[in-house]
């Protein structure tokens, strides 16, 4: 693309460095911003700077959070005897959208996949174990993607929790899920959390 302006070119480069934004889309966004009031761009830029400067990981569940502890972990009305283990924040959002789950979460940050350099140590497994120490947690729901790596991770964590008096269950995975948790429709996901199945290791 041939730009008449260095400023436009830089902005287009910045936008198109984002995932799934091509040069054409980036140019459209840039031209749009030029057309609007200068304040729109200022607010836009400030939102990004603010986000990056202030976003934190919840010290308890590793969810993204504005404070040291996230709103879910802080919420006194939630069931503190149950933890749903997920890969990332998008899974939390999907499950929250169903409105069927009132317990706590724990974000692993991925699944075990040595091919991609992710071993158990790269995931938030130890902090999960610490959360179980005071004996308040009665149940753990594993809501991981229905892949070989998801299986490996469920097996591994269950093994680490052996001997604890905690019920482990998994959500119904497979056919009804379009591959990953975040794509599952709310109804199906909600239903599968209610009808979760006790985990059995044979």
């Amino acid at each position, binding site marked *: 693309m041939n730009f008449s302006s260095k400023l436009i070119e830089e902005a287009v480069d910045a936008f198109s460095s984002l995932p799934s934004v091509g040069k054409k889309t980036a140019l459209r966004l840039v031209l749009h911003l030029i057309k609007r009031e200068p304040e729109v761009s200022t607010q836009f830029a400030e939102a990004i700077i603010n986000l990056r400067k202030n976003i934190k990981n919840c010290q308890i569940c590793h969810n993204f959070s504005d404070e040291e502890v996230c709103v879910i972990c802080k919420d006194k009305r939630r069931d503190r005897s149950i933890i749903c283990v997920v890969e990332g924040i998008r899974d939390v959002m999907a499950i929250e959208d169903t409105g069927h789950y009132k317990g706590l979460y724990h974000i692993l940050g991925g699944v*075990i996949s*040595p091919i991609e350099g992710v*071993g158990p140590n790269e995931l938030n497994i130890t902090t999960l174990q610490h959360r179980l120490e005071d004996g308040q947690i009665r149940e753990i729901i594993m809501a991981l993607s229905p892949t*070989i790596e998801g299986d*490996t991770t469920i097996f*591994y964590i269950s*093994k680490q929790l052996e001997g604890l008096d905690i019920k482990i269950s998994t959500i119904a995975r497979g056919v009804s899920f379009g591959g990953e948790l975040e794509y599952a429709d709310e109804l199906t996901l909600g239903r599968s959390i209610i009808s979760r199945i006790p985990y059995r290791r044979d």
Partner: protein
Amino acid sequence: MQLNRLILTNFKNYEFEQLNFHSGLNCIVGMNGMGKTNLLDAIYYACMGKSYFGINDRDIVRHETDFFRLEAHFERLEKAESIVVKVMPRKKKVLERNDLPYAKISEHVGLLPVVIIVPDDTLIATEGSEVRRRFLDNTLSQIDQQYLKTLLKYNHILKQRNAALKQFGEHRKADPALLKIYNDQLLEPGETLHQKRAAFIAEFGPELAKTYLIISGEKEKVSCKYQSALTDQKFGDLLSAAQEKDLILQRTTIGPHRDDLNFQIQGRALKRFASQGQLKSFILSLKLAQYSVLKMKKKMAPILLLDDIFDKLDNERIKHLIQLLIKGDFGQIFITDTHKDRVSEIVTQSGADNQQFFIESGTVQSIQ
């Protein structure tokens, strides 16, 4: 089952070519390097979703172009099946059956059974075990969609286990708990592969011996034995026993991925004791036995692709082979030869209905 029509765009040395085929014998003649093998590989590709020679999709694209397209119209169990393959830059390859794209290419395998014989296939007898496993997997995958699924699952877990072993080595610290989980995950697909392979060879072995007698016209006995560590011991025990070795070598040293086929002639190792002629006959028999088994299991005649199989054979043997192909219970056959008149003459003499093609530099001419 038959291929009626093939349309190639930028496939290897074919810029654009439309071909209509005969339901029986198709003879394709042309000099070396003109594109005979590429044409057979295109047909194979339409059946299996990939090149027989393991050629990368990027390298199938014709020089100085950036995509290829393959369109094949089959007739299968009296129903039309159109298969389209599209490989484009920066896009995932698309394989469509009757305008519907497959979610996974592997789902296509087995729909259109195919057997291909090429000169390099003698490597199946002479090379390492990998080529024999590939032959075994190729056949079983076409017969049993569940087999292919199991194989892909097994290979995936194996890759993760090997990557984990490598990481343990790099960090100089093993995680036995993780290794144990990979062992457990490998068990079910590993045992399944073993059972299916053993059951297959039990059927395939006698078929191979029978075919060899017909092909060679001689009395030597050939056999094919399945060799697997899982035959005598439980996979789980094998993995546990090999754990230390695996940690040192940083890869999984035991399992169905190390299986082999043991080919024998007159009770002795084929690789060491067979003459060139015997070797050629053996490979031909192996593939034609594959054909018979596929035909029986799929309840339809696979497509048979024969690339340059007459090379270095005397006219008597060529005649014998062609008679066999014509009189045998085959469906559609594609056969290539470098000699312009050799095959056509023998075929014409035999009175078999056929269509002949002449290939020169990526253009094909039907000969009436």
